[in-house]
């Protein structure tokens, strides 16, 4: 894997250029903005069909905002987003509807993204109703198919979200995202809330669906090890900017930007002989002279 696929010529699935977004963080007495937070500053990348772009970075780096801007869940200040050559930002209401059909999103907390009062069949069927006008038995058939595809039983459609485990709920969220037959799925920390043994199941499902349908993924995560094994290309974000971009394994094995180097060095490693050697990002092991110690209790302090 990680070889560029030359069969995929033509316009890229997703092309993002010069994306900017700032949020107002303070207003004066008259409601005029006086300070801004530049959440995303000039982000550009492109993604081919059947490929995965990983976006990594720490809290506040702007990685989730990029995901939202691409889908116009948040309106960008400037820049351009093209999906299969079509300008997403210029499109009106109808264009936006077409966009939402071709590009879907899944989130970290699948329980929060499903209505707790709706049986999951209704949640999964909703996009079918909205985009294709499917109802009744025909809708139910499609919902059953979709649930089957993500490894659940069709009759589970009549159950409520609280009856499922976290991993199953994320499968349901994936089924709902698939309902519109999208070309692109933005995955925002899709397995961060799941148990380690279950994470890989959901990732394998995403890999299978990608191979089957040529889906493109924008995979947003704080977990660098995960992105390394899952993404073809990786963008490292810091303070709203992409500081480094490259093929996944290469970028992690040979990071160029100082920030990427710091991140990579800080990744804890599963393996023997690590105890008390400490990650390089935190500096070399302290010498006894500079090592922090709990100060002894003062004279007469102890009882």
């Amino acid at each position, binding site marked *: 894997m990680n070889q560029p696929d030359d069969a995929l010529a033509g316009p890229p699935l997703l092309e993002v250029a010069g994306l900017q977004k700032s949020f107002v963080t303070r207003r004066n007495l008259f409601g005029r903005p006086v300070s801004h937070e530049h959440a995303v500053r000039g982000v550009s990348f492109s993604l081919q069909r059947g490929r995965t772009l990983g976006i990594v970075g720490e809290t506040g780096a702007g990685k989730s905002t990029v995901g939202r801007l691409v889908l116009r869940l948040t309106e960008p200040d400037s820049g351009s987003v093209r999906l299969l050559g079509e300008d997403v930002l210029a499109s009106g209401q109808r264009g936006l509807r077409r966009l939402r059909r071709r590009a879907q999103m899944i989130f970290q907390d699948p329980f929060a993204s499903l209505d707790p009062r709706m049986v999951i069949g209704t949640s999964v069927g909703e996009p079918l109703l909205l985009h294709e006008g499917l109802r009744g038995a025909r809708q139910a058939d499609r919902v059953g198919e979709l649930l089957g595809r993500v490894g659940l039983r069709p009759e589970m459609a009549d159950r409520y979200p609280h009856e499922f*485990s976290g991993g199953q709920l994320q499968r349901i969220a994936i089924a709902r995202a698939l309902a519109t037959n999208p070309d692109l799925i933005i995955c925002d920390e899709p397995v961060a809330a799941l148990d380690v043994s*279950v994470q890989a199941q959901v990732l394998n499902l995403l890999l299978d669906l990608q191979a089957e349908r040529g889906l493109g993924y924008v995979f947003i995560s704080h977990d660098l090890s995960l992105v*390394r094994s899952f993404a073809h290309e990786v963008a490292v974000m810091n303070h709203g900017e992409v500081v480094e971009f490259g093929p996944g394994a290469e970028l992690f094995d040979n990071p160029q930007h100082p920030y990427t180097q710091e991140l990579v060095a*800080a990744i804890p490693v599963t393996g023997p002989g690590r105890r008390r050697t*400490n990650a390089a990002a935190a500096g070399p092991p302290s010498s006894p002279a500079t090592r922090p110690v*709990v100060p002894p209790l003062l004279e007469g302090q102890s009882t």
Partner: protein
Amino acid sequence: MQMAVENPEPLLEVTGLSVEFRTERGWTKVLDDVGFSLGRGRTLALVGESGSGKTVTSLAVMGLLPPRGSRLVGSVRLDGRELVGMPESKLIETRGRDIGMIFQEPRRSLNPAFTVGEQIAEVVRRHDGLSRKDAWSRAVEMLDAVQIPEAARRARHYPHEFSGGMCQRVMLAGALVCRPQLLIADEPTTALDVTVQARMLKLMNDLQADSDLSILFITHDLAVVSEMADDVAVMYAGQLVEQAPIDELLVRPQHPYTAGLLASSPDVQGTVERMRHIPGSVPAVGNWPSGCRFHPRCEYARGGQCDSDPAVLLQVGRGRLSRCLRTSELTLQGVQT
């Protein structure tokens, strides 16, 4: 690695610990006959997924389980003293002075209405009876020890003025201010960014070096365990399933669940076409399978044996325990070195 030569008695010894919670359907067992011991100056990691019982174990050790909604049998001995059945007033004293605790979300454990200096000083005033002034200087000293820059000035700040990583340092300062023998850290870096996590782990390791502070480290993350632990106890469905010194566990796991966890860790996978995983999901609390509780998800499970005979914890080497009926027949793969 230094050994506590002068005092070979373990600091913490937990034996036969079982816990039940009151639910709508009566009493439900959440912890089943858990036992382990933690030596002085050492770190034991309790590893498990959601519902494995690792947090309940730590709460039981601290005596923090709700008295009405839970019942507990077994023994928890700290430095030779039995904590189970100890009167609440003595327990409160022990908790602050001999046991320090830090949790996953430091901000939730700090009071937003008081400065961090006041909150740490309060701990020493209460447990060591220091004057207000001495307690304050002790708090500043402690904030400095956890490497908060300009500790004297920062002590006058409120929790919201600190980042998540700095809040966790404040918690650590409060937990260690009375120089406890035992620190219980429940997923202390799970909510932190990776660079902040690395610095926090290093700080904890540094504070422990040359002291006889023992750490009970609770986490789901085997990579963090590799960086922190001397010994590991792996929990599954309310039971201890494997216990071993860290490097032995990583290189040669004895229980299929441990091997599965190791194989599904993302950093062990490398770049692969498909990720290795454990099929199925963690069973719900109280809804545990018969026989070995891991058998429905185990690739080595054998019908007529693993699904019916209860698995017992067996000694499988020096300091090593495994709860697998087939442990002697299996050669499981660990992390490649």
